[in-house]
């Protein structure tokens, strides 16, 4: 079986990711309600190795991985890849030049 860790940790991580997604109103979202309901429904069981519980925990861990990696990917994209090319003025400025200004023509 996959090494998943404790369900509580997964749940807390999931709720934190949902908070990052939705902001203040995260407790009103359908996703929050669904996640909590699913975890509550599978909590009470007398079996040590409940298959449904394992399935749910794996799904929750997968969803947590999805939310977390999408957020990290977006942050990396914003930081490194989001800016497009520099304009000619900026490029000239990098080496300390300024583009020439000519009346009625180029520049």
């Amino acid at each position, binding site marked *: *079986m*996959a*090494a*998943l860790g404790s369900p509580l940790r997964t749940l807390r991580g999931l709720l934190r990711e*949902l908070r990052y*997604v*939705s902001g203040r109103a995260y407790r009103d*979202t*359908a*996703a929050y309600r*669904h996640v909590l309901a*699913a975890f509550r*429904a599978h909590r*009470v*069981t*007398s079996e040590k190795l409940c298959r*449904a519980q*394992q*399935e749910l925990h*794996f*799904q929750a*861990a*997968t*969803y947590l*991985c*999805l939310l977390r*990696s*999408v957020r*990290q*990917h*977006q942050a*990396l*994209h914003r*930081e*490194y*890849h*989001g800016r*497009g*090319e*520099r*304009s*000619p*003025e900026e490029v000239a400025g990098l080496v300390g030049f300024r*583009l020439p*200004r000519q009346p009625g023509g*180029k*520049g």
Partner: protein
Amino acid sequence: MWRQALGRLPALAVRGRPLGPGGGRAYAPPAERKRFYQNVSISQGEGGFEINLDHRKLKTPQAKLFTVPSEALAIAVATEWDSQKDTIKFYTMHLTTLCNTALDNPTQRNKVQLIRAAVKFLETDTLCYRVEEPAALAELQKKEWDPIVAWAEKRYNVTIGSSTSIMGPNIPASTRDTFISHLASYNMWALQGIEYVITQLKSLILSMGLIDRHITVEKAVLLSRLEEEYQIQRWGNVEWAHDYDLCELRARAAAGTLFVHLCSESSTVKHKLLQD
């Protein structure tokens, strides 16, 4: 860039590019679609669950109504749409993309063709291609990949093996048939998801490990990128390339796995009687 057809909606407006001096144009990334809805909600229709953006129903790129069979999947897709801030970034909405693919089937493949494409990957499975040098990498591959291959061989009662030659391992026809008949037990939607995960991870064995819940997504991605991780350990990590690719692969693999599980499950709640 595909667009969502939502009744009568204006065409995508492209922002004018700024002009530099001398008529030279600076390249700006193309304008993205702004978020045009306030609320995202779910409703149940005849075919399944639908997504509503404000009062409009979401549609696929081929203008079909967006319906999913599972409520949990609908909620996850709605969360994806809800998480878009000022602009809509389609490349982050992996579950939506998967659902669109399943609904539209743009490559027009039937179940048999999908299964064949998936099983064909076994011949070029990452886990079966081993290096001979550097010795540390060969050792690492043996240590990390052999247990997974052994698990797959035991679980499906097949022979896979591994090879260091450029031709790859010799997969017997019985192995292929076993996987074909195993995959035939999944429905069309789940198969689209499975084929997606296989293409992303470049490995059938790892994908089956994920589907059978034998390994986590993080571990599967690590095993798929084993050689890269080895080189990173050796030469250093480049955040804007390595971490970027890692996060993207994790997101795609997680989305695919979640999609498969949500499309192939049927949950029933059995209430146990409390005994005092």
